[in-house]
């Protein structure tokens, strides 16, 4: 029990934060929102995977990746390839010159399915690919860079370049990837209509459950010895290295893990939105993910989820109400958060939250009886 409370939830603060978040996304939002808005929230929550992965990587590891969109996109494309193959059965594609292959291949004079599409005929292989390929890709990049002690701003630039390269590759090879249109018109998963309201509810809850699981696993990583080492590496890398640790291995691990987490988000995105396009791989989405983490508080696994929700709600509401002005409003929101709450929403809560919690008798009692132990949610100044 103590293991669960301390290690998986992160003590009192983490535990209550987790319970409140879980109640919000599993009970309150589905109760009060209709399926259209709930589906939107589901879409936002897929970005939260990437934001959570940035807490591990950037907040704790001090490694700023401006290429999380790459992994989000790889996960999304993996799922989209599977769904597209299912939608391209010979019966559905009779009008093509070559029935049975995705429509965009037919438009590009490709007459048989490329070999790397073959595994995506099977759902288990697809899921394995979604989890393993992005992590493997991150492992290769990470090994190439961290073993050579490339870090800091150089790492950020290189990840950004990788995002650009991958976008150009996808757009350029449109016969194999669908090009700039992306992979569209996805309708069924093993014969089950994914566009029905029913399916949307199921995906929403699956998504929420996966997100909470990822948060628990991430919390476990951070509360373990590995988490402390990660913080130590961020604050004084040389000192850790001189103490006899191989710093690069830790960084490679956390980079690969964050890639896997982002990829899960990407796959869930494809399922809920119904298509995937290169606009999720490039620089803009990658930087947006960093903004979600910054606004939510890059040291807080829970805070970034709120950050992601807030920014995306803002984006949707502003752009619905002020279609000509909304970008300025978004810009204003970012600037004010960075200027006035450098530690994000989580920092705001830590600084002022006790004014609110002190008014709740139950919380007060709890505070008296329990001495707060190692709280991981530190909000000290992190250096990038």
């Amino acid at each position, binding site marked *: 029990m103590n293991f669960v409370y301390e290690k998986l939830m992160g003590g009192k603060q983490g535990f209550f934060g987790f319970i409140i978040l879980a109640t919000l996304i599993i009970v309150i939002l589905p109760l*009060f*929102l*209709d399926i*259209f*808005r709930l*589906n*939107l929230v589901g*879409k936002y929550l897929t970005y939260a995977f990437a934001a959570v992965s940035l807490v591990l990587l950037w907040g704790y590891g001090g490694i700023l990746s401006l290429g999380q969109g790459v992994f989000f996109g790889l996960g999304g494309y993996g799922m989209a390839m599977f769904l597209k193959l299912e939608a391209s059965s010979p019966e559905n594609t009779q*009008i*093509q*010159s070559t029935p049975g292959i995705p*429509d*965009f291949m037919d*438009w*590009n*004079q490709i007459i048989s399915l490329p070999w790397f599409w073959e595994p995506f005929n099977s759902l288990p292989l697809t899921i394995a690919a979604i989890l393993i390929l992005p992590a493997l890709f991150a492992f290769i990049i990470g090994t190439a860079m961290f073993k050579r002690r490339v870090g800091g701003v150089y790492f950020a630039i290189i990840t950004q370049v990788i995002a650009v390269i991958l976008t*150009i590759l996808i*757009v*350029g090879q*449109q016969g194999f990837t669908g*090009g*700039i*249109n*992306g992979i*569209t*018109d*996805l*309708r069924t998963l093993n014969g089950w209509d994914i*566009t029905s309201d029913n399916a949307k509810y199921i995906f929403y809850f699956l998504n929420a459950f996966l997100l909470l699981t990822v948060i628990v696993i991430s919390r476990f990583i951070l509360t373990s010895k590995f988490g402390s080492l990660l913080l130590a590496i961020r604050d004084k890398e040389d000192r850790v290295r001189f103490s006899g640790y191989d710093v690069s291995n830790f960084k490679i691990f956390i980079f690969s893990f964050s890639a896997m987490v982002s990829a899960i988000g990407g796959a869930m995105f494809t399922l809920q*939105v*119904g*298509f995937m*396009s290169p*606009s*999720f791989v490039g620089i803009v989405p990658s930087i947006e993910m960093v903004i979600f983490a910054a606004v939510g508080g890059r040291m807080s696994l829970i805070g970034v989820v709120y950050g992601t929700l807030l920014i995306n709600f803002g984006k*949707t509401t502003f*752009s*619905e109400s002020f*279609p*000509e002005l*909304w*970008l300025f409003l978004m810009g204003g929101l970012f600037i004010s958060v960075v200027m006035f709450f450098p530690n994000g929403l989580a920092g705001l809560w830590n600084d002022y939250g006790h*004014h*609110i919690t002190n*008014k709740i008798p139950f919380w007060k009692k709890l505070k008296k009886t329990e001495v707060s132990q190692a709280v991981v949610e530190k909000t000290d100044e992190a250096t990038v």
Partner: protein
Amino acid sequence: MKYSRYRTGPNSLRRFFVKGLMALPATIFLSASCFAASPSTAEINTTGLAITDDTVTVGILHSLTGTMAISETGAQEAEKLAIKQINDMGGILGRKIEIIQEDGASDWPTFAEKSRKLLVKDKVAAVFGAWTSASRKAVLPVFEKENGLLYYPTFYEGLEQSKNVIYTGQEATQQILDGLNWVAKEKKAKTFYLIGSDYIWPRTSMKIARKHIENVLGGRVVGEEYKPLGNTQFGSVINKIRLKKPDVIYAAVVGGSNVAWFKQLKAAGITSKKQTLLTISVTEDEVLGIGGENLEGFYSIMKYFQSLENENNKAFVAAFKEMWGKDSVIGDVTQAAYLGPWLWKAAVEKAGSFDVDKIVAASEAGDIELKTAPEGYVKLHKNHHLWSVARVGKWNKDGQATVVYESKLLEPDPFPAGYQ
């Protein structure tokens, strides 16, 4: 006293906020409860669209921000002009059209999200919008799922025919075949060099062009090249063109790349004096960016040019300039977008209903026609595309084109046999 303390404390702000948030879900029900059903409305609206006794709501979905904004602005301006003119005439079935505008932000998923919002939340009777093929592909499943109605204005690659879309631009064969016939006949062209931006529309268009050149015209394609969207380096292509000396350069370079492409051609000394160039991607809107002097003497194939000399067009250009400023230019897509609301009006009046299924059925009868279209006479084919003419325009220094060739009315054929 306690009350007043609450009013000034931090809590009051929070309460205010919480109250405000609690009211949010209520706004969702507003649109549904706003229209009380009177008999006539019930009759013409059996599917719960946003129609009252004196208004009908439609959506406009174009990019107001991002890279596509510059192209899509003209389209949404034309749609608003048409809607205003229809309202001035008394609306449709006695109902004034109200507009809900959404920003697609040049981002395909945003297009999908906003179209779902327009159909599910706002229950709009029709949507005028989308521009790029990618945005159309993104919204298509949404319109089919929610049984909405989309009027899509851009000339495009064909290979598509959805129950829920009316295509007011020309599909590929309507634009390509006649233009190629013309250039083969007039300029005695035998060799062609194909160049385009690298995405679905140029590639499909070139595929059709190549088949036509090789199989029908008996000509030869001496080069085919694609450059990434946004590319600004055309030096290597221009060198190859110099080497191959094609009779015709056939171009489908889009967006900002156009500026670099034509300026570099001119800098390399390839001008209309020595070289015939035919493009399917340059309208008056693009010329604004490219500069008329860089294009002078080159040819575009479109169905509409701002300089068309007919009464419909003169009235349209005058009305457009009055509404959107005298410097505005009108390109092919802008005109096609202008047709959308008028075609919708004709179909609604024919069907006597705003129900999507009935409008589609009326449209598929194949006899909806517009005699007042700026491009001349248009008729809606039962395959959801328009009968239209192809025109070849020769660009002048001032950014306007002189029409040098006009085809007969062409039947739309989105799935051309022999060109796949």
